């Protein structure tokens, strides 16, 4: 069995027609992990015993009940779970040492929904601690490496989930996206990665980074697989009052519909100095493919772009400083000196922005600029249906390239954070390869336009099929 060449759609077919069993599938995941994870560091915790037991249980179900796949649409699908997702009885560290021995007594809503849909949790994945980072290097453990080039980062913060799917350890990697954390690893690892609309997927049980920004997404190899998972995770949750009573779309049903007369906007503020020429060419080439599919392309303007990162790095650390105040070593975990350097930086930045005498100049000002950024996108969406940007201004960068300069690391997300400020969805789609490294293209739409994003991405993927290019563990 070659897990790398299989998608959720194909695995479901093969489980149905008994080409292989759940047990064989899950065994293969762990064989792959044992063979490769020493090089990649995608997993912090492996869930082998329970996963194999669950696989046995599901094999019995499949044998006795032919209708089981309509009851459990993701039956037997191996999932790698980011360690910010609370998992009952499975160690949950947030990539940090301070709660390195925390075994949660409950499941996050997204996890409960996935389990009810039949997934099998393979393990918990490495990440920048608390979601603070763009490279995976802010983990309190060993950093994850990019399966396409082991000397480079896989993108963060959901670094382990991205790498795990990319090297064939699982078919889905869950992630959270507060500023880039699903889209950047998807972009750097040749995956489809969704940052949904704020409030589309419940945040209940996700260890909070910045509560007014956090969104719960996932990475897969194909667009169909991605849409299939969102059909399970999306929806209103009484345990998260910011989930929105908007009907969940039929994300897999729209795939294949044409995109004739689709208007695509290119924000002129994004195609500027600092954007790698080769990345630029890859995106321009992808746009030509979309034109051939019937779309038209025009320039749009997002005038406040230049201020987005400054607003982001006031508001997010402010919320971080508040959310991390609960880690006091009383109810679980260790004491505060165990925090890593980046967590300390963000707590201090946030405390500064919220402190007496600075609140108006920083926090309140940034909250107003957030309104302006949101309006920028709303105005653009009066003229176009979607906006396309590169996911990253550069190719996946080298391990240690940016670790000494936090500001440079923050600016890796320059094309991604504005989307979180506006609460709108963004989807990373593979745009091909440059020098053997993956390039990501970001498709952005108005709030709750996930159906449209998938529709566009699906047709593009059908033309390009970059997901068939597998990692070679270069520079290992």
């Amino acid at each position, binding site marked *: 069995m070659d897990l790398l060449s299989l998608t959720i759609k194909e695995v479901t077919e093969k489980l149905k027609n008994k080409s292989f069993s759940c047990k064989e599938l899950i065994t293969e995941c762990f064989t792959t992990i044992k063979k490769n994870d020493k090089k990649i560091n995608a997993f912090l915790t492996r869930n082998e015993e329970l996963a194999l037991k669950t696989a046995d249980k599901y094999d019995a179900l499949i044998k006795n009940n032919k209708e089981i796949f309509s009851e459990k649409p993701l039956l037997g699908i191996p999932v790698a779970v980011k360690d910010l997702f609370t998992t009952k009885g499975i160690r949950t560290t947030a990539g940090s040492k301070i709660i390195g021995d*925390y075994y949660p*007594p409950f499941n996050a809503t997204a996890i409960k929904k996935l389990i009810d849909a039949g997934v099998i949790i393979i393990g918990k994945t490495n990440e920048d601690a608390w979601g603070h980072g763009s490279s995976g290097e802010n983990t309190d453990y060993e950093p994850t490496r990019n399966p396409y080039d082991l000397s480079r980062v896989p993108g963060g913060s959901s670094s382990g989930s991205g790498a795990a799917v990319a090297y064939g350890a699982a078919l889905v990697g869950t992630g959270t996206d507060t500023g880039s954390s699903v889209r950047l690893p998807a972009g750097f690892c040749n995956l489809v990665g969704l940052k949904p609309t704020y409030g589309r997927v419940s945040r209940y049980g996700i260890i909070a980074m910045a509560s007014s920004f956090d969104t719960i997404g996932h990475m897969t190899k194909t667009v169909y697989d991605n849409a299939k998972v969102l059909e399970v995770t999306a929806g209103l949750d009484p345990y998260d009052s910011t989930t929105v009573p908007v009907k969940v779309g039929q994300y897999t049903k729209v795939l294949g519909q044409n995109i004739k007369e689709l208007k695509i906007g290119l924000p002129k503020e994004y195609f500027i100095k600092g954007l790698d020429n080769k990345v630029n060419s890859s995106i321009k080439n992808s746009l030509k493919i979309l034109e051939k599919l019937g779309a038209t392309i025009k320039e749009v303007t997002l005038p406040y772009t230049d*201020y987005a990162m400054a607003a982001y790095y*006031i508001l997010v650390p402010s919320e971080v400083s508040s959310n991390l105040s609960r880690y006091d070593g009383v109810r679980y975990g260790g004491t505060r000196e165990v925090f890593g350097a980046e967590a300390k930086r963000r707590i201090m930045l946030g405390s500064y922005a919220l*402190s007496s005498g600075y609140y108006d100049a920083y926090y309140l*000002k940034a*909250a107003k*600029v957030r309104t302006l950024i949101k309006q920028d996108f709303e105005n653009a969406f009066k003229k176009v249906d979607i906006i396309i940007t590169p996911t990253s201004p550069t190719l996946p960068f080298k391990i240690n390239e940016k670790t000494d300069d936090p500001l440079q690391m923050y600016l890796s997300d320059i094309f991604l954070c504005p989307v979180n400020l506006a609460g709108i969805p963004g989807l990373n789609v593979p745009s091909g390869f440059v020098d053997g490294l993956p390039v990501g293209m970001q498709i952005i739409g108005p709030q709750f336009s996930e159906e449209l994003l998938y529709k566009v991405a699906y047709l593009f993927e059908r033309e390009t099929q970059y997901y068939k290019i597998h990692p070679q563990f270069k520079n290992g």
Partner: protein
Amino acid sequence: MTKKNLTTKDILHIAKLGNLTLTKEEIEIFKKQLSSVIEYISKLQEINTEKVEPASQITGLTDVLREDKTDDKRTLTPDQALANTKSKEGNLFKVKAVLTE
């Protein structure tokens, strides 16, 4: 852009607000790193936001309420609640004294 130079006193004050204790080395590193970030974020002062409302809830939800009732499904037993603590006594979390005589 205005130059920002945080002093040791500034850093210690912010660290105290965040309930953090720092080593001497950390103070020096953070002084430099946080000064450059604060310098960067200060560019927001260039924008006139006099007539702009701050964004607090980005999808526009207001007053999401629920019934004032206990939900057993999201309630932990004392054993579950205490399972991860390193310091307890009976069914209670044990903490250091807050008040002194």
